[in-house]
């Protein structure tokens, strides 16, 4: 088998663990980064090849975790926590504001591909609610009036 840079990076991950299978999650995270934020079938095959697993096994892992995406996402990922403490602090109005500004329902991707919008479960920022996570970076708190500026930032990227 030809060794690709990805293959070699996964071998390095693999060497950190007593058993190779432990590297499945870090390898999937790496593959997702390299494939534009999601895991197309070829990404699952690359992970499987690098770890001597089957693509089916790798898919069974990928489908278990919320942060691994099996469908394409937008260029940015906007996640609004709607769990108890954020809900009490007005998360729904924040989610609505993003939906309006991006022109997309929660769970969907804007037509121009700018961003995917999601409601998520507790992100662990309850003391600075409502929490919004943009491309993995916590913004806390975010109020509806902050939303146009955040979306503007994403457009300007």
């Amino acid at each position, binding site marked *: 088998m030809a060794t690709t840079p990805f293959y070699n990076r996964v071998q390095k991950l693999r060497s950190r663990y007593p058993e190779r299978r432990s590297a499945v999650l870090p390898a999937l*995270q790496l593959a997702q980064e390299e494939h534009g934020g999601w895991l197309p079938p070829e990404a699952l095959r690359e992970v499987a090849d690098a770890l001597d697993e089957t693509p089916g096994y790798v898919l069974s892992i990928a489908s278990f975790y919320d942060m691994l995406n099996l469908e394409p996402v937008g260029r940015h990922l906007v996640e609004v926590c709607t769990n108890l403490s954020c809900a009490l602090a007005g998360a729904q109005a924040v989610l609505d504001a993003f939906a309006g500004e991006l022109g997309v329902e929660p769970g969907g991707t804007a037509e121009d591909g700018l961003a995917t919008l999601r409601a998520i479960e507790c992100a*662990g920022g309850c*003391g600075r*609610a409502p929490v919004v996570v943009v491309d993995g970076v916590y913004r806390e708190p975010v109020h509806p009036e902050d939303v146009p500026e955040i979306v503007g930032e994403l457009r300007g990227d």
Partner: protein
Amino acid sequence: METELFLAGTEDHDLRRISEYREVGGYAALEKARALTPQQVLDEITGATLRGRGGAGFPMGRKASLLAKDTGKPIYLVVNADESEPGAFKDRDVMGLTPHRLLEGCLITAHGIESTAVFIYIRGEYEHEFEVLRDALEEVLAADLLGGVSIVVHRGAGAYICGEETALLESLEGNRGQPRPRPPFPPVNGLYGAPTQINNVSTIALVPKIVELGAEAFSKIGAPSAPGTAVFSLSGCIARPGNYERPLGTTLRELIYDVGGGVADGRELKAIIPGGSSVPVLTPDQVDTPMDYDSIGAAGSFFGSAALIVIDERVCMVQLALRAAQFYMHESCGRCTPCRVGTRWLVQLLQKIEEGEGEERDLDLLESVCDRMLGKSLCALGDFAVYPVSSYLRKYRSDFEAHLGGAGCPFHESPIEGIVAPVSQHSGHPEVAHV
């Protein structure tokens, strides 16, 4: 000045840097511990009655005493940094502000249990804290403090269930994060089938202070049955939300009113969730209960992750129950039928009640579903889904009854009305859409 064990030194030092951590005495405890025998280190931890800060409150020293000896296999130390309980955000600050205290705790504990391999399983969303921890670990490596111990920081990928210790081990082994049947328990058969000590971030982060102060001095802080401090996470309808370190045994009243500034906007207190969304709710007349494992237990709830969610008079307890139930439905791993199916039933029944389509018998059915779920699953998630629903129903039954007979939700000021939960994005069933 409040007694600080976790956050000591953070006010005037950047404790993410090893040089500043050393200025406040950092890594002196490690040196002291390494001069002791492993058993002497464990004796200090046992003598301090250090109880687990992750939720169950199990004494760390007793856990270590259960580790299988002479198995011919390595002994692993696994740190549970998968903090995901709604309302909880203490470990995030412990890692983000004092990463070296956690790493020092790992190295001291590793010496105590004679382990050379440590894994820290951190929830995937905590990317910033992961980076802080990784940078701190590089400093530890550069300072040659590892002493032959390896520490791997392993990132999760978004699954509440992986905070359950056996699900965490499965996930760390590269499997789906589904809990294991017990026995065998992790001290006998844990990671890769080897004896494994698993502790929460906040438990391990206290270990250096125990070695520094000595068990006797440590056990004089806080409640006699549970010495030390906790980082209390205050959120919800409270004037000054945030993380505050206080001794165990501080009352809910002190935490809510003195520390947190009281209910936000001067509203009336309606309910207190003392330990994160999974624990039974307490009523305002219980506000003088001390926050320690035994006192909160006697009051009918759990200390949990010391995450207080304050609920004010406007909030509809049916909506709150529904949103909590949606969370547990979303996070159920699907392995045990009572949890997988029961969480869906809870959501459907609560949805029906919230929409005004419920009748008296639906409340009975809700109770019955709770009874049939409780204690019936491999792990506690099935119970966690029940505690909010059954306790809100029992203690705030009039809120539920006010919805019946076509009345619909009478709480027009409730701040969580119409909240969209992630289940509505994933579910193919429109009837379990949103509140």
